[in-house]
């Protein structure tokens, strides 16, 4: 336990030192405030419109941004230590590979959680203070859910980054693969799903299709954040989610599984990495 924290605190202080934490928090805050006030500009309105609309816009933006940030934060976690020669040294210390990996995860995970809390939290505060007669209860609930799920989404991609980082032998290949993972889950997956829908001309079992959404953590994340509002604003592939006969709790569980399973996979791959 102490060893995990020893590794985590270094990652955390690295995050503070190279101003990652500050930069991500600022980015989140600026984007959230911007979207809250300007998000409705396309429909000809200016100023804050509604909580569901704000959360929906924020969630679609975060789907792109959070995985990218998580992957950038963690892609060199193992292979970077290896290239610096410190991995071999660390493995001669009284420190297991699992502890090393978990320590990295705790450190990076805390950076992401803090950045989400600070960045989006500031935006929520700004809305609470500046917007008149906003439903504070709904605001707290929606933003709380949004921040928690965004953190979990970030953790999913941290875990995926560790899998890559444990597998490859060069930092540059880890970076390339990380971009590939981002592309796959954030862009390609939904397009492929739509293509499947169109090309199968209805022959594909329509009951099965919504389940496929669960294979993409980014989609699970969006389903979580788009549900629960009156007259949901789901569009595109997300509309499929409406057919899904599972409740919100199961979606959360699914996201948690998406954190746990890649993390275990990363551990398995890391154990097999030769020194």
């Amino acid at each position: 336990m102490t060893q995990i924290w020893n590794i985590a605190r270094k990652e955390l202080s690295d995050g503070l030192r190279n101003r990652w934490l500050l930069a991500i928090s600022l980015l989140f805050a600026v984007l959230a405030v911007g979207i809250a006030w300007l998000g409705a500009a396309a429909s000809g309105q200016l100023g804050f419109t509604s909580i569901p609309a704000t959360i929906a816009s924020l969630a679609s933006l975060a789907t792109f941004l959070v995985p990218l940030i998580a992957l950038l934060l963690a892609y060199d976690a193992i292979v970077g230590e290896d290239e610096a020669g410190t991995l071999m040294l660390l493995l001669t210390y009284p420190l297991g590979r699992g502890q090393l990996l978990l320590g990295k995860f705790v450190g990076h995970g805390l950076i992401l959680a803090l950045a989400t809390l600070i960045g989006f939290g500031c935006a929520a505060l700004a809305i609470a203070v500046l917007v008149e007669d906003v439903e504070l209860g709904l605001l707290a609930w929606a933003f709380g859910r949004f921040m928690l799920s965004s953190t979990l989404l970030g953790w999913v991609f941290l875990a995926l980054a560790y899998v890559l980082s444990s597998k490859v032998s060069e930092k540059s290949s880890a970076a390339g693969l990380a971009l590939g993972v981002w592309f796959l889950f954030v862009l390609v997956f939904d397009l492929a799903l739509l293509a499947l829908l169109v090309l199968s001309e209805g022959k594909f079992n329509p009951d099965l299709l919504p389940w496929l959404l669960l294979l993409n953590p980014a989609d699970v994340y969006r389903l979580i954040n788009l549900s629960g509002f009156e007259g949901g604003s789901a569009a595109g592939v997300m509309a499929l989610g409406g057919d899904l006969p599972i409740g919100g709790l199961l979606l959360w569980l699914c996201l948690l599984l998406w954190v746990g399973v890649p993390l275990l996979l990363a551990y398995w791959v890391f154990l097999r990495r030769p020194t």
Partner: protein
Amino acid sequence: MNAVEIEGVSQQYGSMTVLHDLNLCLGEGEVLGLFGHNGAGKTTSMKLILGLLQASSGRVQVLGRSPNDSLVRRQLGYLPENVTFYAQLSGRETLRHFARLKGAALAQVDALLEQVGLADAMDRRVKTYSKGMRQRLGLAQALLGAPRLLLLDEPTVGLDPIATQDLYQLVDRLRQQGTSIILCSHVLPGVEAHINRAAILAHGRLQAVGSLASLREDAGLPAVIRASGLKQSAQLLQRWHADGHQARSVGVDGVEVVAINGHKLGLLRQLLGEGEAQDIDIHQPSLEDLYRHYMDQAENTRAGEGAA
């Protein structure tokens, strides 16, 4: 109890055998030099002791336990050959990080940095360190928690002559305190005075192991005696040739004679008595000569095996 015991260890990578039936032990408070060409099996042996590799066959025990034991790891110091550390941390921060991981007192950090001569640079980022400074930081790292067993992989690379001397003096001091040390090196001159025994590896096989004296005896390499200011160099040479010694004249009044086992003292007596030599220089076979001898022997054996 021996600090390290390696019994009948073979190591395979795929179909390639990189260590053949290695037997090696290191006593408490002993300094063992591990020498060999690139790919001779030095690093593999180190990794086996460090528990980074599992031996394909045979037994490795470190401080009486399995190398993976965390009790062993707490008492073991390792200086890797190439380590760049974390560029963005200062020397002190780096060492504090490693001290926490090893469970060593943080109070040691400053003292160790001073000991390796990094006192003035400890608050600078490691990024700005030279190769020699990083090497010294690595050494300070290896000394964290006063280890009972120290593994130094190419410790003198990048060090200037004075820092190299400091390192060897440190090795002597640690040995007196009872630390067992394995010193892996390419750089042979200068190291011989600081090791108890030398082990020479070639092509994954241990060619020789023992103190310098016993290796010299075993190898049968001759000492070379040079003398100058002789009164009767011609007569001496004549007599030595007649006795079957290899001898030649050097300059006007000097000679050089090869003293094969057991003849050294006799030849010296003659030089001092009849020759009235003014200056005598005895060149004992150095570690380098021994190394070359065993390497040649290994090559010959391999060539012989290849032919057969």
